């Protein structure tokens, strides 16, 4: 994807909707520098008080796992079902566990 467009580079936008909650990807914006991109992100993604926090990251700085390898990449967890609480037997009558 070409990153240097007429309207500036591409940035990914993350919003925090309430303090205490995790930031969530909202979309992307163009901006010739971080300051302009931040203002563009505010204008595009928070016109209705959607955020108390806003991050932008240059799109080409995001490192992602390749979807074609995702099965083998994530399957390390498949044989570790003992990491889930439902794996364990709890005697009948024991509560709050």
């Amino acid at each position, binding site marked *: 994807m*070409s990153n240097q467009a*007429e309207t500036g580079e591409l940035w990914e936008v993350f919003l925090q909707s309430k303090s205490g909650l995790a930031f969530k990807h909202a979309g992307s914006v163009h901006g010739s520098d971080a300051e302009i991109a931040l203002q563009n992100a505010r204008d595009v993604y928070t016109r209705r008080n959607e955020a108390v926090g806003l991050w932008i990251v240059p799109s080409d700085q995001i490192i992602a796992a390749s979807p074609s390898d995702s099965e083998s990449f994530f399957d390390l967890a498949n044989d570790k079902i003992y990491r889930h609480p439902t794996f364990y037997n709890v005697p009948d009558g024991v509560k709050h566990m």
Partner: protein
Amino acid sequence: MDNNEEYQKNLLEFERKIEAEEKIEPRDWMPDAYRHHLIRQMSQHAHSEVIGMQPEGNWVNRAPSLRSKKILIAKIQDEGGHGLYLYYAAETLGVSRDQFVQWLHEGKAKYSSIFNYPSLSWADIGAIGWLVDGAAIVNQVSLCRTSYGPYSRAMVRICKEESFHQRQGYEIMCDMMNGTEDQRKMAQDAMNRWWWPSLMMFGPTDNDSPNSQRAMKWKIKRESNDKLRQKFIDKTMDQAEFIGLTVPDPDLKWNEETQHYDFGQIDWEEFYEVIKGRGPCNRQRLETHIQSHQEGEWVRNSAREYSRMMKEAKKELV
């Protein structure tokens, strides 16, 4: 594995995801035809939002009160925002926004034919919000379930904002129908002019819609043009009657058997004329877009130059 085998394997996995209602994401493998269909549909959708600012912009300076002016400006800003959500979502398919805009200016990309009609009176602003945005909502609610992830997410965001648009339009129509005889006439006149073009927004009938079948198979589209059109008519009829507006279609009547409204023949010749560029405002809409894009060039250049200079200055400090 040779290329063909690889392709078949990818295609099977793609079709499995579509079947299982899993979303396709930008980095996933997808057939070229799927990508091209999305590029065409999403950019057309984005252009429609942006060109749609023009008929409404025509009334900002003549809005009848400060309240209605503020609301109209906010609505127009939303339309620009919706265009941007869609351009950004479309860019994930590997085409830049500059390219999309260029295709629009060269006449290679289309936008919704509805925006080639003029907004002649303040009542038209009511009719646009109520009917045009109303029709767009029916279409966009359905598209929230589209199979391409970024498109679906943009639609969810847009739908949340659209209902304000429709209500502000309906409020204008209500106010005018509760007003003087002249105001009621204006409202009915706007209704008469916008009703049929609004029905055309859903596109040709299913039998004449060549791209629809594949789009339905790949779940880019979730409901057919005719089904969406019927939904819109059914829900809009009551709203029209409630404020005393007459729908300009003598064949429109409730069908007890189908539990839907029957309606008259749509003038498809008019639809294709407008699509081919011979609607009332096609030339004006495109010229205005090109002109404002050119007039904004110095802003884009200054921003780029400023950011370049700031980077240089930082380097010197180090």
